[in-house]
């Protein structure tokens, strides 16, 4: 970890990075980002946005540019998707997180949303990292699916080195030999990040497990492990989702999970104060 000049704690007193996005403060308290995998239509996005807001989510997620394993799968609505996200933000006042795939899109995406997401496949796309490092938008950096903690922090270092201090790390599962889950969610990385870095750490249990039944227990576990927030996929009608339908929570499931998370958050604050 010797080259981590800006992301590491460097032995000093722990100063944690706190990022303000509109009314939301990331790094203080527990932040929930929820929304559909992709923006499919205005109706679907607005309906989901209203539902997650109602259940207590703090921010909205939604993909306009989609990195799909197959070139023939739905690739996202592009600029039209960004316009829909902007509309959802106007209506719900939820700040918006969206993924950016192409360095040529970075300045355009900044015009519409609040937080830029770098996906797992692009974690080590250094030209893209430099480009988002030049913006004034916070960046949610997902962990590469084959990456070590050190490699991941080095990628955050690229963004900080360009002058953008607002990086949020996000664990989203790594590849292992087990095929029961889509990935293996590495929750142990949450306290590990806290030991070595001042950056906030989020957990994405939707991609991390790829299994509907495992999302709630892993969200609760993420809070218990000390994560600063979670990012989950919610779809107003998961059966008809164009992308990741079988790992998307319904609004009702999300609302019931939020009730449990709120309780756990109170308990954990007590324990953390001991």
């Amino acid at each position, binding site marked *: 970890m010797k080259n981590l000049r800006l992301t590491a704690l460097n032995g000093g007193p722990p100063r944690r990075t706190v990022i303000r996005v509109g009314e939301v403060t990331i790094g203080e308290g527990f932040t929930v980002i929820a929304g559909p995998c992709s923006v499919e239509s205005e109706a679907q996005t607005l309906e989901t946005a209203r539902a997650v807001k109602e259940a207590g989510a703090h921010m909205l997620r939604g993909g306009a540019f989609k990195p799909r394993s197959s070139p023939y799968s739905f690739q996202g609505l592009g600029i039209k998707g960004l*316009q829909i996200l902007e509309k959802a933000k106007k209506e719900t006042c939820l700040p918006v997180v969206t993924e950016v795939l192409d360095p*040529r899109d970075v300045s355009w995406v900044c*015009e519409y949303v609040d937080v830029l997401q770098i996906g797992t496949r692009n974690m080590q796309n250094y030209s893209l990292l430099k480009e988002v490092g030049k913006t004034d938008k916070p960046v949610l950096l997902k962990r590469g699916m084959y990456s070590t903690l050190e490699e991941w922090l080095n990628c955050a270092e690229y963004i900080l080195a360009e002058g953008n201090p607002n990086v949020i790390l996000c664990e989203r599962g790594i590849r292992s030999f087990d095929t029961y889950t889509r990935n293996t969610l590495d929750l142990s990385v949450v306290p590990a990040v806290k030991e070595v870095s001042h950056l906030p750490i989020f957990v994405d249990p939707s991609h991390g497990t790829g299994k509907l039944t495992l999302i709630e227990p892993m969200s609760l576990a993420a809070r218990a492990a000390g994560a600063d927030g979670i990012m989950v996929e919610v779809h107003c009608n998961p059966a008809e989702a164009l992308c990741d339908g079988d790992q998307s929570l319904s609004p009702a499931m999300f609302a019931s999970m939020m009730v449990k998370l709120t309780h756990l958050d109170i308990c954990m604050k007590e324990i953390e104060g001991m």
Partner: protein
Amino acid sequence: MDLKDIRKRIDFLDSKILRILNDRMELALMAKKLKTNVEDSDREKALLDRIRQNSPGLINSEFIEKVYTEIIKESKNLQMGDFSLIGFKGEHGAYDEIASREWDKDLISIPCAGYSQVFEGVRTGLHDYGIVAVENTLGGIVGEVNELLVNTDLYVVGAVELPISLCLLVLSGADHREIRTIYSSSQALAQCTNFLSRNNLEAVQYYDSAGAAKMLAEEMPQGAAVIASKLAAEIYDLHVIKEDMDNFGNNVTRFLVLSKEENKEEGDKCSIVFSTEHRAGTLFNALEVFARKNINLTRIGSIRSSMGDYTFFLDFIGSNRDENVIAALRDVEAVTVNFRFMGCYKERKVG
């Protein structure tokens, strides 16, 4: 070109034909303002003869005669109707046209090349009304219009405050990554400098924002987009990819509606212009009248006529039927020179 490309070209030409037909009908309505009779068989015969002789290539004379007989019939129909025209600066889709629709949606809005043409159109009777922008929250007063207002004998018969939403428009199917150049009016470009510099885009001034939209639709320059209204996007079949692009928000323009006749209905706002003699306290004497009568001024503008000589505009709340206002106007006229009452009218705030 495949079938899809050919059909796209045909759709494009059809929308152009519609716009041109609309322009022709507008001219027919304007012509009616300058003649008393709708029927003019000599003019019709000359027109049909010329078209028959000039019909190119695939257009046979029988066909084009049928088309034009219908066009002339419709023009005459319109000329027999009772339409009122309002002139505005710019092309169809300009913010000035949106303001004219907000003032009275039944008026036929007619594009004019500039503000002086709007004044001229009303003065000569070509248009029943004219609408002009006087001030903007971001850009300040519109100097050219204020100068024209000082020197006109037209009346102010209405006012509109319109929020301006500047939108980024592109050709349908355009790739945002290829956009390099943004065309629009100098005012709109000046209000979007943050967006332009963040995205490293070149700004090119055009005489009018809607005119830039029309140019984009017709000439399809590579890598270009325009800043104009949503209405312009509808008219020229362009896509809106970003709304509310201005630097600060709260972008509002105030427009005045002009006519040769004074407004006869009850109003709630008045406008006057006057100059004062070059002596200490003369402007104070005029303003004091309003203070003593407890009349709220809503705008004070000044235009320099020569070095050190100013003409002042005053807008205030009240009706010229109120005793208090009548007395104030009489007192102000007594202490000023070149006093002119420009009108009492209703002001409409949009949104």
